[in-house]
């Protein structure tokens, strides 16, 4: 039982990481109906930025917010420079562009930092504490707290600020929003910036576990897709619930299903995507798909 609970807790920790990246996907999907295949690579590049700052002597807790700000700016720039000129193109074109962007960012990171995995510092010690008989590492606890705070911040921004209100308005009804004076195009830029910053959190949190290298996020993005699809791709709350569910499921499957082990965990993530799409294509929190004419 104790071992089981420990697996659940570390599943929640890794799930918080999936949730952050899934939320980044949902933010852009909501804004423009586009699945951003470059989200993982954007997070990876941001993590390299954090690495560069920390290895130049900046303290972790200063480098962290600085990286988020830089990631935000980078996201806005990508939207203005790469996405905006093709905003009205068919969605498939946009998808191909995000795939190209992913390759580009991956190559850029490889060119600048090389492909040798580097250890990335964690702000939390690997020691464990005893919580009612369950041993939890400070590292897991820290990841849960940081992810939780980030998700809460995004929730408050979206639901309780004027900027959040206009972001949601522009995402759902661009034409009607324009008539209310909402600058829809800038809202898209803001959405990309926000997504980049939230995604960067997942990169920084996962880097101490996986070691930092340009391909670090390629498995994480699959889990994030699974989480977003499970949550219903357009629901921020769904992304969080989906992320935690996928994290716990994958962790338990790895621990208790003998043939899964560590090798087939990614397959579990993919299986979740397929099963959700077959049984409940709108996910847990998605509305039934309707098309406006």
């Amino acid at each position, binding site marked *: 039982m104790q071992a089981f609970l420990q697996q659940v807790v570390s599943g929640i920790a890794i799930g918080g990481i999936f949730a952050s990246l899934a939320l980044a996907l949902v933010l852009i999907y909501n804004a423009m109906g586009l699945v951003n295949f470059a989200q993982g690579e954007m997070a990876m590049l941001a993590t390299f930025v954090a690495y560069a700052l920390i290895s130049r002597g900046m303290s972790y807790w200063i480098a962290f917010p600085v990286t988020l700000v830089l990631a935000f700016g980078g996201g806005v720039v990508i939207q203005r420079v790469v996405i905006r000129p093709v905003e009205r193109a068919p969605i498939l074109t946009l998808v191909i562009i995000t795939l190209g962007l992913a390759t580009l960012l991956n190559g850029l990171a490889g060119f600048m930092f090389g492909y040798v995995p580097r250890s990335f510092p964690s702000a939390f010690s690997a020691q464990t504490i005893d919580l009612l008989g369950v041993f939890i590492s400070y590292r897991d606890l820290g990841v849960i707290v940081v992810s939780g705070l980030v998700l809460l911040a995004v929730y408050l921004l979206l639901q309780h600020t*004027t900027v959040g*209100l*206009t972001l*949601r*308005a522009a995402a*759902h*009804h661009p*034409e*009607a*929003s*324009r*008539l*209310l*004076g*909402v*600058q*829809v195009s800038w809202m898209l830029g803001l959405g990309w910036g926000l997504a980049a910053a939230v995604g960067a959190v997942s990169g920084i949190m996962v880097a101490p576990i996986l070691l930092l290298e340009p391909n670090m996020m390629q498995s994480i993005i699959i889990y994030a897709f699974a989480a977003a699809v499970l949550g219903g791709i357009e629901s921020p709350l769904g992304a969080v619930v989906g992320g935690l569910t996928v994290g716990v499921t994958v962790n338990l499957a790895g621990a208790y299903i003998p043939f899964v082990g560590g090798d087939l965990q990614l397959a579990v993530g993919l299986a979740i995507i397929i099963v959700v799409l077959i049984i409940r294509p709108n996910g847990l929190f998605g509305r039934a798909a309707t098309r406006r004419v």
Partner: protein
Amino acid sequence: MTALLEMEAVHAGYGQTSVLHGVSLSVPDGSVVSLLGANGAGKTTTLRAITGGVRWTGDIRFGGRSLRRMSTEDVVRGGIAHVPEGRGILTELTVDENLRLGSHLRRDTKEVRKDYDRVFEYFPVLKERRGLSASTLSGGEQQMLALARAFLMKPRLMLLDEPSLGLAPMIVRSIFEIIRSINQSSRVTVLLVEQNARIALDLSTRAYVLEVGRVAVEGESEELQGKESVRRSYLGY
């Protein structure tokens, strides 16, 4: 009275199809002007040209300034509230959030609060439903919400696209009463597009009748109501 809005020989259309063939009209400051005509005459396109929702040539001036090449957002921020065809309600959001989008650019907090009180006086039902999703409102209530939201933008000019569409006659009457009151007590100029010529002419001082993208008849509302030939051939009553 000086003209708040002037259109001069405006041509507009969608892609290869042109809809307006040189529309000229003038909306005096503080007035209510009706824009009438059959389906497809170009009424909605005229409004969309004003707020930049469709490409146009010619000239449109608002408060003396040309609106040429201005984005929809900038036209709206300049003081024009456009309640579009279909009302433009954001159904994913609550009633309150829709209203807040109306006032979100205003910095005169005190005045905004007063305007909310006014809005809830006009439409008590919106106060009751503030927290509910806008998608739960009936057609009449959605029209009220659209009008309330436009009022909260504190515009100098309101463009209303068929506020009577699909509503019961009693609700239409009360909504038109409120439009009249918004015009008179808040000095908001109104350009009103309507199929229901009778009720529109009762409210407006001046009217234009469009026919296939051109102004076919224009004049004082009273005068048009009096001319049987005009009523029969253009207004259908």
